[in-house]
């Protein structure tokens, strides 16, 4: 990575948070900081890195905001005094506020948390909140966010513009709410981060690997948020989510075959799993389960803990055959009790089948058709279970239904191949 990319990665959110806090102008601050980074990219290679790059960037960005404010004052002749006062206030700030001390975590961390809570505000849709948080807090480019969510770049740019406008017009504050409200707001941050994470793993065309890398940004976001202070570090939903994402993301390299196709869990080369990340996830999970058990006060945290426990069982197994499916099936049962989700029930059926109870597994699928009328996974799982139970005619019919519903070409091929093997 170029030095400036490192600074971008490490400092963008903190600098933007400070700049928004000081200028109270989200729109101007974001543009100005992007502009400052552009200037840096032009001048640093020749002039060399400044002693304190964040301070350099902050000064450049603030100057840019001042220019824009002056231009606004000229354009809106009606309130020149107000704008002039604002310019004066900012110029004063530039002189007497100590600029960002480098590398110290506590300084500006409240500002960063405020920015996170603004971007991941429950008044925005979760999709919009996820995009805005990646953009504002991590400085992820609009193009990359668009790729992550599988939409064209202009669509994502429009979505971000709409989100910024809503935040400003509706009066979403740059503030940390009361202690009663804060845990709930941090859970919204967790939901938004998880949405960004799972987006990177949604089936897309071609660029699978790159999108999994973008999923890693959600992990970086939660790390950053947890580093802002006690409230975030102690939030069980954020901790459980971090454990879950680390455990799942650790398998990213094994998911993609040499030809770029998706490699499912049983066939993955477990030696390519990132063990350090698994260990980190396990430790976070151990803290949560060890002290409080799975019955956490927060339903969201309990949900993430159960999902993380399932991922941990897979991580613990030295081979697919070695997997403790009985334990996994029990976690899925608890997860189904908690969420009532038909998708969880479908996964539970798979786990129950893997644990050896085919009849029980098929029984769990009963009644799911109504809840998942368009799912190709439901008939695909049913087909597989029927085939294993030796009920080949019914299995072939279920495969046909799955193939009819499946939108992904590669997966359709795999289903057809399996169907033909069962049919003969």
């Amino acid at each position: 990575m170029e030095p400036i990319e490192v600074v971008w990665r490490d400092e963008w959110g903190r600098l933007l948070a400070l700049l928004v806090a000081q200028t109270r102008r989200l729109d101007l601050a974001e543009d100005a900081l992007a502009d400052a980074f552009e200037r840096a990219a032009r001048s640093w290679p020749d002039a060399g890195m400044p002693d304190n790059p964040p301070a350099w960037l902050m000064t450049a960005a603030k100057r840019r905001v001042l220019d824009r404010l002056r231009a606004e004052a000229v354009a809106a002749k009606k309130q020149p005094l107000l704008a002039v006062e604002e310019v004066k206030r900012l110029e004063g700030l530039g002189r007497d506020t100590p600029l960002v001390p480098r590398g110290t975590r506590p300084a500006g961390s409240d500002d960063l948390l405020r920015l996170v809570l603004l971007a991941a505000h429950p008044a925005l849709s979760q999709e919009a909140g996820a995009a805005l948080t990646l953009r504002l807090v991590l400085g992820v480019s609009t193009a990359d966010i668009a790729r992550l969510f599988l939409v064209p770049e202009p669509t994502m740019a429009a979505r971000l513009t709409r989100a910024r406008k809503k935040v400003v017009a509706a009066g979403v504050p740059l503030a940390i709410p009361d202690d009663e409200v804060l845990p709930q707001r941090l859970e919204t941050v967790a939901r938004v981060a998880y949405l960004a994470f799972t987006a990177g793993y949604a089936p897309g065309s071609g660029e699978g690997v790159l999108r999994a890398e973008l999923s890693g940004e959600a992990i970086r976001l939660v790390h950053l948020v947890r580093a802002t202070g006690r409230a975030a570090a102690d939030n069980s939903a954020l901790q459980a989510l971090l454990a879950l994402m680390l455990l799942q993301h650790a398998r990213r390299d094994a998911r993609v075959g040499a030809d770029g196709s998706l490699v499912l869990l049983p066939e993955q080369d477990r030696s390519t799993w990132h063990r350090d990340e698994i260990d980190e996830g396990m430790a976070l999970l151990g803290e949560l389960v060890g002290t409080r058990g799975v019955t956490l006060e927060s339903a969201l945290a309990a949900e993430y803990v159960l999902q993380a426990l399932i991922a941990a069982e897979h991580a613990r197994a030295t081979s697919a055959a070695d997997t403790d499916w009985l334990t996994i099936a029990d976690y899925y049962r608890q997860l189904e009790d908690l969420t009532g989700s038909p998708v969880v029930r479908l996964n539970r059926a798979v786990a129950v089948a893997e644990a050896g109870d085919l009849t029980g597994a098929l029984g769990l699928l009963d009644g799911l058709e109504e809840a998942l009328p368009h799912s190709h996974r439901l008939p695909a799982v049913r087909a597989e279970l029927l085939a294993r139970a030796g009920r080949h005619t019914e299995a072939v019919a279920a495969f046909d239904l799955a193939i009819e519903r499946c939108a992904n070409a590669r997966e359709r091929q795999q289903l057809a191949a399996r169907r033909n093997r069962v049919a003969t």
Partner: protein
Amino acid sequence: MTKYLVLLAGSEGEWENADPADRERWHRAHVTFGREVGAAILGGEALDGTDTATTLRRRGGSVELTDGPYAETAEYLGGFYLLEAADLDQVVKWCALLPEIYSIEIRPCIQIEGMTD
């Protein structure tokens, strides 16, 4: 400070048809809201039913009146408050005091130059 219009929507007749204990509880919630928000309430009214509404549209120079609300929806506007607040979080915190029977829409007001208040 921003002005916010807080629109209280609910099922038509829910208040009128409720048993007295519920009505009393909801009434108290409004009183508590009034006490908490105090001078930040710039205005507010409870509205009569949509069966008393008249909708006016101007088409081709003439005024057309129709009986009923401008949109037939599952939830009807039953009342409103006009508040002044520093930000959305403040409004949300206040609105949590109101009876749980409403869907509450919070809309910031735009300042229009040349309009004084």
